[in-house]
């Protein structure tokens, strides 16, 4: 297993390093701007129409540390970046190498399909974990030095929630790849589901009659409890974990059943 992971990692090295560097820059730059955000600018943001703030996921205003971090990182850009990273990794798990005819050299060995899937999935999970860790370190260092007034535990909770949402979509991409082996299908499906899920959340916030839509969106289970203020909601977190588990089960069942490399 370790040799399989090491071998697979060599193939993903550049993607992983590039993304981790990018995420680190993003989190550092945005966190560090907190100091330059004077009250007037914050007030201007606060004066934006409610609907617009909702659409961008800025729920608690810019004037507090939690509101600021929520707006620039945790509510939209951060999760979306991490999700794109997760989908890239999910696609590279099975679909991309299979489409490139590269699976023969793995599966012709005494490596079971389950073992192969496990190894490939661990790289996806590890990549997201590393991405979240990079963001966490950047945010934490500024939150502490600039005294943003947020508990460390809540920053950890919000980052974990964000990582979990990314893992849901990354696992979706992985599962579609395991089931079909087609990168086009993976990217199409995952992209459509992300957009639909985000729209469900936004519409449910904006329109009262559509508030039930939020239950369909993984984003809701991450943001509803306002993790930067109140930490993670155990029930909601469990829903996300269940989604990941379910999608992973689909990966194993479908990949074992089908023809590979056709």
């Amino acid at each position, binding site marked *: 297993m370790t040799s399989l992971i090491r071998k697979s990692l060599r193939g993903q090295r550049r993607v992983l390093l590039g993304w981790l560097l990018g995420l680190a820059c993003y989190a550092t730059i945005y966190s560090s701007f907190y100091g330059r955000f004077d009250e007037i600018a914050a007030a201007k943001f606060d004066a934006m129409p409610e609907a617009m703030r909702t659409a961008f996921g800025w729920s608690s205003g810019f004037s507090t540390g939690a509101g600021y971090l929520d707006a620039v990182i945790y509510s939209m850009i951060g999760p979306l970046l991490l999700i794109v990273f997760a989908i890239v990794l999910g696609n590279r798990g099975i679909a991309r190498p299979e489409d*490139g005819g590269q699976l023969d050299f793995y599966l012709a060995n005494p490596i079971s399909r389950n073992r192969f899937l496990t190894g490939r999935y661990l790289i996806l999970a590890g990549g997201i974990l590393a991405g979240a860790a990079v963001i966490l370190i950047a945010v934490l260092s500024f939150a502490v030095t600039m005294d943003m007034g947020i508990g460390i535990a809540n920053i950890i909770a919000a980052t974990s929630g964000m990582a979990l949402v990314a893992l849901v979509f990354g696992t979706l991409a992985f599962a579609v790849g395991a089931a079909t082996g087609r990168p086009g299908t993976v990217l199409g499906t995952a992209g459509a589901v992300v957009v639909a899920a985000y729209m469900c959340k936004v519409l449910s916030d904006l329109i009262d009659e559509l508030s039930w839509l939020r239950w369909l969106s993984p984003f809701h289970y991450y943001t509803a409890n306002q993790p930067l203020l109140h930490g993670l909601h155990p029930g909601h977190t469990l829903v996300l974990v269940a989604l990941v588990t379910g999608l992973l089960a689909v990966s194993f069942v479908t990949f074992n059943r089908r023809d590979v490399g056709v």
Partner: protein
Amino acid sequence: MTPAVQTEGLTKYYGPHRGLEGVTLEVPTGEVFGFLGPNGAGKTTAIRLMLDFIRPTKGTVRLLGADPRRSGMAVRRRVGYLPGELRFEGPDRVEQFLAFLGSARGGVPRRRIVELADRFDLDLTHKIRTLSKGNKQKVGLVQAFMHEPDLLVLDEPTGGLDPLMQQEFQDLVRETRAAGQTIFMSSHVLAEVQQAADRVGIVRNGRLVAVERVESLGKRAIRTVQVHFDAPVPAEEFSGLHGISKLRIEGPVLHCTVDGRLDPLIKAAARHTVVDLISAEPDLEETFLSYYYEQEDARHD
């Protein structure tokens, strides 16, 4: 003894498209079996079924006495496989790649890898991505042979190799056979199969149309003959002769193929003045084609 490869009614459809139809075949341990056919005949499909990359629509396949699906791990530990199309993931150097495969198969001594790489004149320090087609093929061959598997399944093994390396491959096949290992290799190159194999199976349009020992194919001795006369000759004198086909007369030159003895043709030709006679070596391809035609004729009659 359990056969190394055993298929029964092996059939694979890709949706409505036929990949393989009712192939029943047995390759005993220690044999070199050539699986011969034109592109798209179903050779790769059969091989991918053996390795459990794809699953049969109907029929069964057993490798080394076991089901490659249920006992996949145990089977593949004893199998060396060369894909027909070599695609490598990642920026590995040759030795990193071979080390990974070695460890996946429970460890291969480095000495063995170096020895094989030297034979094929393969530099282990190069990045695989930068290698030429022929050198990639060598990587594929080294990994297939390096763990000394009981059964080698090779899809178009000499593709991209230069003649010197093809000869090296033939030598390796002979040594492998002498060591008691079994080789199942597909090819559309008749010469390489003729040289290396004990038996040959011919596959066309997804069906196994013939299985023959290589020697007995040689005995059928179909050859092409040209007879040059000093003047044009009438075709009727030759057309009815035993064993003669594809008769064509161009002025004073007679072309034909002869199956079996040359005697009837020689006797008939002797009535005229013969300037020259050219008889080409028995050609396996002709022999195979005659197989095809016989099968087709038998079906149409």
